C-alpha cells in the first residue's frame, strides 16, 4: 500500500529530526543500561563490624582476625561495652555487632562450650540475614578448627559443596543486564509511541489526516511500524553494548531473541497507543505513561523476585508485559533456553499483544467518532 509507505517515510523523517526523540532512542538505552547495570548490585560485601571483646584472649583475637580476614567484614570499631556498640549500630557505622563474653577462652577449654553474641541490623532483612549467615559460617569454621584435636574424637561433619551454575562468578551484571535491556526497550517504545500519537492530535495534524482518504488503520500502522522496526535496532545496539561492555553471556540463540522482540514490541506499541487514546495533551500522555511504566518496572521481577510478591500481585503481573520480557531475556541469554522452554511465555505475549491492540483500536474508534 503506497500510502502506508509515505506515512512511514514521514515518521522516520520526523523521528530523526526530533531533538528529544532521537537521543532517547539511541543514547538512552545505552546510558540507562550502563548506569543501571553498575548501580544494580545487591552483592553484600564490605560489611562493617563492631566488636566488643570482653575476653581479650588469644582465642578471641584469633576469632576477630578470622572475621576480618574473611573478606566479607571489615573492622569498623571496638566499642568497650554493649551500649556503645548499640550506638554504632544505630548510627549505621556498623552493620553487625559481635560480642565476646568474658572468660570465653576459659569456658571453651574447660567445658568445651562457649557462646558469643551476634547482632545484625535487620532493617534490610536479607542483608541482615546474609550477614548473620556469613558470620555463622565463620564461627562454625573457627569452631571446627578449634575442635580439630587429633587426640579426641572429632565430631561428625557434613560438608557442603556448592556450585553456582550459569554465573559462577556471581556477577550481578550478568543477572541484571539482560533484564534491563528488555526493560529499557519496552519502556522507551511505549513512551514514544504514546507521545508521538498524542502530539499529532495536539498540534492538529491528526485532524488533517482524518479529512484525507487515509484510512484509520493505515494511519495507525504508519505510526506504529517505525517504532516496531526501531525496537529491533535498539535491541541490537543494546546487545552489542552488553556484550562489549559487560560481557554478558549469550547462551541462547540470538535469532530467538530478535524473533521474540519482533512479537513482543506490539505489546508496548499497543499500550502506548491505548494510552494515547486517553490523553489530550502530550503532558497528560507523559504522566499516564510514566505512571503505568513505573508500576510495570518495579513489578517486573527485575529488582525483586517475582516469587516473593504476594499472590494478588503475581496475578496482576500477568498483565505486565515487562515481566514477560525480563523473564524471557534471562532464560534465554543466561541459561540458553530454547523455544520449547519459553513457549508459554511466548504465547502469553502473543495473546497480550492481540488483546491490547484490539482494545486500543476499539477506544480509538470511539474517540474519533
Amino acid at each position, binding site marked *: 500500500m503506497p500510502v502506508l509507505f509515505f506515512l512511514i517515510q514521514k515518521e522516520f523523517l520526523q523521528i530523526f529530526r526530533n531533538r528529544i526523540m532521537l537521543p532517547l532512542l539511541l543514547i538512552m538505552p545505552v546510558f540507562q543500561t550502563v*548506569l*543501571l547495570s*553498575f*548501580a544494580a*548490585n*545487591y*552483592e*553484600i560485601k564490605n560489611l562493617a563490624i563492631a566488636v566488643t571483646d570482653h575476653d581479650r584472649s588469644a582465642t578471641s583475637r584469633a*576469632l576477630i582476625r578470622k572475621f576480618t580476614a574473611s573478606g566479607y567484614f571489615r573492622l569498623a570499631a571496638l566499642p568497650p561495652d554493649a551500649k556503645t556498640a548499640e*550506638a554504632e549500630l*544505630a548510627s*549505621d557505622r556498623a552493620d553487625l555487632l559481635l560480642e565476646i563474653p568474658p572468660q570465653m577462652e576459659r569456658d*571453651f577449654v574447660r567445658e568445651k*562450650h*562457649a*557462646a*558469643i*553474641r*551476634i*547482632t*545484625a*541490623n*535487620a*532493617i534490610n*532483612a*536479607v542483608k*541482615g*540475614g*546474609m550477614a548473620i*549467615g556469613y*558470620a*555463622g*559460617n565463620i564461627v*562454625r569454621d573457627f*569452631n571446627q578448627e*578449634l575442635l580439630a584435636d587429633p587426640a579426641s*574424637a572429632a565430631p*561428625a*561433619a*557434613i560438608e*557442603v*559443596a*556448592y556450585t*553456582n551454575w*550459569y*554465573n559462577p562468578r*556471581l556477577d550481578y551484571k550478568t*543477572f541484571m543486564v539482560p533484564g534491563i535491556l528488555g526493560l529499557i526497550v519496552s519502556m522507551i517504545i511505549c513512551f514514544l509511541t504514546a507521545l508521538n500519537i498524542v502530539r499529532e492530535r495536539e498540534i492538529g495534524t491528526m485532524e488533517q489526516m482524518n479529512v484525507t482518504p487515509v484510512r484509520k488503520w493505515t494511519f495507525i500502522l504508519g505510526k506504529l511500524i517505525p517504532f516496531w522496526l526501531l525496537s529491533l535496532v535498539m535491541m541490537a545496539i543494546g546487545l552489542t553494548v552488553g556484550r562489549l561492555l559487560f560481557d554478558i553471556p549469550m547462551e541462547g540463540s540470538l535469532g530467538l531473541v530478535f524473533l521474540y522482540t519482533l512479537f513482543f514490541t506490539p505489546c508496548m506499541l499497543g499500550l502506548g497507543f491505548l494510552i494515547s487514546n486517553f490523553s489530550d495533551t502530550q*503532558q497528560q500522555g507523559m504522566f499516564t505513561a*510514566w505512571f503505568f511504566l*513505573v*508500576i510495570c518496572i*518495579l513489578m517486573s521481577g527485575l529488582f525483586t*523476585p517475582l*516469587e*516473593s510478591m504476594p499472590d494478588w500481585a503475581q496475578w496482576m503481573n500477568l498483565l505486565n508485559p515487562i515481566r514477560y520480557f525480563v523473564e524471557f531475556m*534471562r*532464560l534465554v541469554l543466561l*541459561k540458553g533456553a530454547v523455544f520449547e*522452554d519459553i513457549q508459554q511465555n511466548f504465547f502469553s505475549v502473543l495473546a497480550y499483544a492481540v488483546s491490547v491492540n484490539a482494545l486500543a483500536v476499539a477506544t480509538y474508534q470511539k474517540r474519533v467518532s
Partner: protein
Amino acid sequence: MFFFIRKEFLHILRDRRTLMILFGMPVAQVLLFGFVLNNEIKDAPIAVFDPAGDETSVALTNKLAASGYFHIETRLRDAGAIEPEFRKGHIKMALVFPPDFGRALAHEGRATVQLIGDAGDPNTASALINYAQAIIADYQMAYNQRTGAPVGLTAGTRMQYNPEQKAVFNFVPGVMTMILMLIAAMMTSITLAREKELGTMEVLLVSPLRPIQILLGKTIPYLFLSMINAVVVVLLGIFVFGMPMRGSVALLTAECFLYMFVSLALGIFISTRAKDQMTAMFFSALGLLMPTMLLSGFIFPRESMPWVLQKIGMAIPATWFNPIIKGIMIKGVGLEVLATQTIVLGGMAVFLLALSLKNFKDRLQ
C-alpha cells in the same frame, strides 16, 4: 501576598485531574510497592536428588523443607534432569545427595552434600545457599549432640530493629521518600512552567510582588499539600504495613517538612531552567526518577555501588532522607544521630532556592 497564595490554592483545587494525581497516585503507589517489593526468601522451589533415600538424608531434606525458606518442587530420578529444570525456570536450587550419605556420615564421620544454585539470580542463589548451609549446620550440631560429641563455640544471633525480618521495613521508607519527592518536584516544576508558557508569569513579574515572593507564593500551597501527602503516606506505612514509630513524632514532622521543602526547591529549580511544560516534565520524570530509584539506596544498597555512583548519589536528596525516616521510625533515634543528614538537607534547600532565585532574576534582565 496572602491573596496570591489563596489564588494558587483555588487554582489547584479546581483542577480535578491534577488533584487526583497529587493525592491518588502517591497512595496507590505506596500501597502497591509496599506490598510488591519484597526480597524475602520464602518457599523457594528446589529439586532434590536423593538416590539412596536413607534416614539421614530424608531427615535433612525435611528439615530444609520445614524451614519455610524452601519448597520441594520435584524429586528427581536422575542427575541429568537437573539442568532442564533450571532452564525452564522451575527451580532455584538443587540438593544432591550421594548414594551412601547416611552410611558415610555414621561410619567415616564425614559426608558431602551438594548444593547447586541458580546464579542467574546471584542474590537469591547466595541467600539460598547461605540459609541451606545454616540449616545443615544446625542439623550437624543436633546430630553430634545425640552422639555426645563436643559442641564447641556457638553463636547466639539477634536481628536488631526488625526481628520478624519484614521486607517492608527496608522498602517502605524508600518508597515513601521517592514518591514524596517526585510528586512535589514534578508538580512545582509543571506549575511554574505552565505559568511561563501561558504568559501569566510576565503579569506577575510586572506586579509589585518581589521575585522571592512570587516563588514562595507559588510553592507554599504545594508545600502544604505535600505535607498532607507526607502525613498520609506515613500513616499508610504505620497502619497498613506495620512500620513502627519508635522515635519522636515532632522530629519526624519537622524532617518531613524540610524534605518537602527541598523537593519543592528542586522543582522550582527545574522549572527555571526548562523552556516549557514538556521539558519540565521530561526532566523531572526522567531526570529525577531514574537516579532516585537507582542511586539513592532505595532498592540497591549504596555500599555495593562503584565509587563514582556513590558520589553522585550524594547529590540526591532522597539519599539523605532515607536514613532519616528509617532512623526515626524504625530505630527510634533522634537528632544526635541524624544531625549530618539534616544539615545536608537544609543546605540543599537553601542552595537550590538561592540558585533558582538567581536564575529567576536573570530571566528578568
